[in-house]
């Protein structure tokens, strides 16, 4: 099957007339609107941890016109470090210079809308409107992007990649693969998860090559003669494209390093899915639906893809989007195969309508958001509800002595708000290494005495969370004097 036949087209869901089409677009626009705004009603993106070091690094890149190669803003400036999100950081810093703190929620909204659009397109788009909308809603509910994250951008690119690869398998149109290396140039500058994309591409290529060799199994566009050249070109081109960045091949090194890191054992977002929330079960439902459908309509590539994605997402909750997007693609593909192959060869005009809807919603949201969120002081006070803004002001105004011992959760924020005090730790776990991180966590959890942590032992000023075990431990030390305390943080200085 390589062409869309008239009979196949006849089976597709066709909206009846202009009114139905308008209704669909309105519904889609409403979905994009809700998807974009729902997670940002309380400006959650301003209270998240990681975004601040991304901002500070982006500002540093703008200032120095180069990317960092060592542990900037930390008390370990000589440690090697690769900022694998440099493209994202740059975008964040540029937006911040333009819109201030309002850019955070706007970027989070934009990522969500783009992701919703990409998943909708992946799930057959306007061709199979209701199925695609339902799948996109389910997928959107399972994503947990509460902040403008590089992972959100990566999820968008992953959905686009899968849409291109599935489309190529159906149509055999080699021109589609030309876009893949370009996609990877962007992806490698945004997030380290470009490795997942490369793995998926290699998997598709391997299955395509095997099918071309044996001429068995699924006879589709991508298993025709000559497809192997296209696959090889796409794979090689993409692997090389990932090195088209200021870090060259070091981007691969950083990716492999992060996979081998011990951080999976102690960083919360790198733990397994906890299965305590509705969205966790929704994810499970999507995956199980995909496997159930694969039992009915067998497809080797889909089974392999899903089997590869599932362990990644179950083991690392941060990467839950991988299996969700794969499940959506597999379900859409299985449903399309169940009726007529090539069902997803959407005419450009129909897809363009969906894209216009997304662009329109995005423009409205960004425009109105930029207007509504123009009061920077109000935004900073929202930040102060979560981060030690007043305590940091105290440190700055009283010229308290460095070095500083700070909480892990606040390190990122302090890199931006208090740059004159290099932090003892922050959420760049790849910078600090397992030993430093584990020692810090053992202190935080009370497993060892605080003095066992070198950063605690050498610190002269201590910034700890109010009401925490560490605060209690600090208060028990006779050689520390509390100089500031509010409902968020406690500041103490060494008296020896």
């Amino acid at each position, binding site marked *: 099957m390589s062409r869309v036949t008239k009979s196949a087209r006849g089976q597709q869901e066709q909206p009846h007339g202009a009114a139905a089409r308008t209704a669909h677009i309105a519904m889609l626009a409403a979905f994009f609107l809700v998807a974009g705004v729902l997670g940002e009603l309380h400006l959650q993106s301003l209270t998240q941890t990681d975004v601040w070091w991304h901002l500070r690094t982006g500002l540093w890149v703008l200032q120095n016109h180069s990317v960092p190669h060592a542990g900037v803003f930390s008390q370990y400036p000589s440690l090697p470090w690769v900022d694998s999100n440099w493209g994202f950081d740059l975008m964040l810093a540029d937006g911040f210079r333009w819109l201030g703190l309002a850019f955070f929620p706007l970027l989070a909204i934009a990522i969500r809308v783009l992701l919703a659009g990409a998943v909708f397109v992946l799930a057959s788009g306007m061709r199979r409107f209701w199925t695609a909308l339902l799948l996109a809603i389910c997928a959107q509910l399972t994503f947990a992007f509460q902040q403008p994250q590089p992972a959100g951008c990566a999820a968008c690119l992953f959905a686009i990649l899968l849409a291109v690869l599935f489309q190529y398998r159906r149509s055999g149109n080699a021109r589609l693969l030309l876009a893949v290396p370009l996609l990877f140039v962007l992806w490698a500058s945004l997030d380290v998860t470009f490795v997942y994309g490369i793995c998926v591409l290699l998997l598709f290529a391997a299955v395509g090559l095997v099918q071309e060799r044996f001429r068995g199994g699924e006879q589709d566009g991508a298993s025709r003669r000559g497809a192997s050249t296209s696959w090889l070109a796409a794979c090689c081109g993409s692997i090389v494209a990932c090195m088209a960045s200021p870090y060259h091949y070091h981007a691969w090194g950083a990716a492999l390093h992060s996979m081998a890191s011990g951080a999976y054992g102690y960083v919360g977002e790198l733990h397994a899915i906890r299965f305590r929330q509705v969205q966790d079960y929704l994810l499970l439902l999507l995956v*199980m639906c995909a496997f159930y459908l694969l*039992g009915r309509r067998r497809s080797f590539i889909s089974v392999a893809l899903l089997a590869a994605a599932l362990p990644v997402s179950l083991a690392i909750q941060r990467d839950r989007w991988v299996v969700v997007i794969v499940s959506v693609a597999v379900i859409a593909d299985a449903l399309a195969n169940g009726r007529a192959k090539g069902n997803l060869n959407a005419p450009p005009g129909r897809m363009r309508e969906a894209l216009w809807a997304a662009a329109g919603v995005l423009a409205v949201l960004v425009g109105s958001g930029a207007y509504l969120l123009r009061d920077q002081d109000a935004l900073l006070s929202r930040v102060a509800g979560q981060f030690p803004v007043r305590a940091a002001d105290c440190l700055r105004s009283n010229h308290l002595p460095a070095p500083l011992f700070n909480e892990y959760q606040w390190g990122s924020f302090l890199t931006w708000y208090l740059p004159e005090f290099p932090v003892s730790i922050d959420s760049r776990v790849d910078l600090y290494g397992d030993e430093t991180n584990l020692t810090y966590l053992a202190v935080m959890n009370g497993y060892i*005495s605080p003095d066992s942590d070198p950063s605690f032992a050498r610190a002269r000023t201590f910034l700890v969370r109010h009401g925490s075990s560490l605060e209690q431990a600090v208060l028990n030390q006779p050689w520390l004097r509390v100089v500031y305390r509010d409902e968020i943080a406690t500041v103490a200085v060494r008296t020896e």
Partner: protein
Amino acid sequence: MSVIEDLRGLLRLRLLRLLAYTVLMAVTGAACLSFRFSVLDPDIWWHLKVGEWIRQHWAVPHNGILCYTAANRPWVAYSWGYEVLLSNSYSWFGLMGIAWFGVVLTMAVAVTTFWALHRTSGSFWKAWLLAAASLAAFLFSVMPRPMFFSMMLYGVLLTLLLEAQRTNRVRLLYWLPPVFVLWANFHIQFVYGLLVLGLYAGVHILKQIASARRINFGVELTPALPARPLLAVLAACFLGSCIGPYSYHLYQVVLEYSNAKITYAIIMELQALSFQTWQHYVEALLAVGAFFAVGWKRKIDPFTLALLCFATVSGFRTWRDAWFLSMTAALLIADAFANDPSLPVEEQPVPAGRRFLEYAAVGGALAVLLVLLASNVDFTPRELDRTISADYPVDAVNYLRRNPVPGPVFNSFLWGGFLMWYQPQFPVAIDGRNDLYGEEADARNFKTENGNPSYAQDPWLNAAGFVLLRRDAPLTNMLATDKRFTVIYHDDVAVIFVPRNPPRATLPLPAQ
């Protein structure tokens, strides 16, 4: 003859099958012996002590025995059957009795799982592979506890349900009421069995209604079994579950567990799968394999689909329920790929006498193998003693025996059960019976032991005559710098603190 045909011929050899079966069981037994879970489980000790109490009093407890903080709270020893067996084993064989009791229980689960899969699939090798996968997924993720009876009896239940559905023989289900009588007196998760049976009956009734009204939307709607006997079996099973010293009160415990929130946040075995071990991936593989297999069947069977969804939610939610998901998934895969739906067993019938001899030979070989293995992996009283001393405060309690201090004790949660058994003169503050103490007390104790600043206001800690804590507990570090306490003993496992001033707060102690 091709290689594949040669291989098929080889796999048909009965001797090879017996050998494979022996290997599977021997590996299971070897794992039991080397892990020594039977004596490492923190809960085993309070089960043992409660069993002793029941044998001593010839009655089951109705309130919080063996502790002083919840002595007057109602409590149901819902695993009393298991506890009596364990206690008997200990009184006959000492520490080795506890250890071998766990090994035998684990082996019994393995045998039942294989039997269920073999009977369902009708194929030895399919059963062997599925048994190996499912046992790897769940058998060693929890220690040998009363739950193992649930595993065995659930295997029996689901096998009978699937076979009754396949063969249209409702008579098979008449075995279920006695199964539930046994189950309800051994473990509280008999409720899972009752829910599965209810689901089975409910789906059959819905099928009958849909069939009568000629509704068909692509699912298998021909009811395999008549509704009335099915409902009668369900009612009999429910009544059977009330036959025991606690009668219907077991359902109150079920209700409490279903309303619990804190328990699911703080108890390790009630956490979701961590995917830090390969067993969790095997469990996930079985689950997705089962969905694939159910989808593979020509007609959708609403019962298997609903059961699989229920088991998947349970299995992913808590790793304690890995057995429920793994056994369900393996049995449904076996059912979907059974050799011939009308013939459950593929092999040529073997005469009963020969079969008995074969089983006896396999059993004998296994027993010899396990005894040999036990001595090779130091599964001896002395080594078990060492294993226990490395995890529990044996030396600390011995110190307290030589240097008595006034109670009551404030102890680490994980040691409560052990202290009940090893230090019976002091009723404990808390132990693994989290349904006894209540959610509020469990949460407060969890915070205190984890060094939350609120520990200073903990009434149990403030009323304690001495505090016996794990060396690595966060509270230990807190008390080490707390001026109100002083250390009187410490080793690599435990630390004992006493208050510098006699405790001001007091708690009512139970009558001895």
